[in-house]
């Protein structure tokens, strides 16, 4: 009687241990393969900031253009055999396992959402401007407006899909593509031309002259 009770207790402890091991292994596997890695746990070391260059500039910005573009790079498996092998390989990699399970024909895909800010205006450091009183008027000669800054930062860059292994230069290539698209949109919207009206308004506000102001671009 006593012996059977001890035996039952042993079995119970043994089963509880097995359940415990299953739970722990399950948790580890979930964390490794499926849990969302937010990266919020990362902490970078405090390193000094080096000032490499200080430049005096004179840029009058009159148009701010905010754009958001989606850039994508996609590679497909060429044969079914390659697709099966590729998806099995993805299953072995915790970061890629979720793409392997779906077993699609996508070999690699990198999709990014890039937000950028483009500033248009005139550069008065590189090109000079002149103010000449002529026939009772103030004639201001200015350089033509141009694209002065393109602000892209990691904070405004989102990697939406990363399927497969990608190199740094490939990510950079996509960012460059996004940048080119933004510049093209700016051109299409004729923002250099549109920068003229606020520029003229701003100069008139600054000059405060009784004489009429004539603005010429060279």
């Amino acid at each position: 009687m006593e012996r059977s009770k001890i035996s039952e207790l042993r079995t119970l402890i043994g089963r509880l241990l097995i359940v415990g091991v299953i739970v722990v292994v399950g948790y580890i596997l979930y964390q490794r393969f499926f849990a969302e890695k937010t990266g919020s746990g990362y902490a970078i070391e405090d390193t000094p900031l080096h000032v490499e260059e200080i430049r005096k500039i004179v840029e009058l910005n009159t148009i701010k253009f905010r754009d958001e573009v989606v850039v994508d790079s996609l590679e497909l498996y060429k044969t079914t055999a390659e697709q099966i092998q590729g998806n099995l390989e993805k299953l072995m990699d915790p970061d890629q396992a979720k793409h392997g399970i779906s077993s699609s024909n996508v070999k690699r895909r990198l999709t990014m959402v890039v937000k950028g800010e483009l500033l248009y205006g005139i550069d008065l450091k590189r090109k000079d401007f002149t103010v000449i009183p002529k026939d009772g008027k103030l004639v201001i000669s200015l350089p033509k407006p141009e694209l002065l800054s393109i602000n892209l930062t990691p904070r405004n860059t989102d990697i939406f899909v990363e399927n497969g292994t990608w190199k740094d230069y490939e990510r950079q290539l996509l960012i460059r593509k996004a940048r080119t698209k933004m510049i093209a949109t700016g051109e299409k919207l004729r923002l250099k031309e549109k920068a003229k009206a606020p520029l003229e308004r701003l100069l008139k506000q600054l000059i405060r002259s009784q004489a009429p102001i004539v603005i010429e671009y060279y």
Partner: protein
Amino acid sequence: MKQTFTYLFLALAVVLNSCGTDETPVSHKEIFEIRTIGTLSTSEYTVGKIIKLNDEGEWYTWGDRKILISCKAKIKAGVNLNKLKADDIKVDGKKIEIQLPEAEIISFEMNPEDIKTEMVDVSGFRFDFSQQEKNKILRLGEKSIREDMKQLNILNDAETNAIVFLTDFYKNLGFEEIIIHGTKQDKRTKNTDR
């Protein structure tokens, strides 16, 4: 025997599922906003930083990962001339007096070409850094640069340069006495979030 069946089932599931296709094209819809501004950028700083990360991982991971990324940021600062109110410019004959708005950060750029992974060290059962992870690390680097920027003299430089430019500008217009007041340092915004 049971194990063999499990593996076979898994392989079969992958094979059958592999017949699927996923070529959903990405929508290239443009979302944009155009605003008229009036900012005068007068100072540009190029700064560099080494982003160091030692990822020891969770308790259940064996091994660690280290990464060193070097990056550069180009920061432009200046004054927002649109903030000039009517009574900020006082003209009295050949004399002009201006109260300049406070200097601020006009633009912040981290060119992807100036971002380089210098070293990656992965040990144990850890996997290499994905691009998504690298982007998250870069965001932390950007945040750190923005924090460190507060120690730089960029806003003072921007204000000084703006005063020099506006003095020349009004001299060109024929003014003889030009007085430009800057913003006291303690009244300046500490916001570097541009």
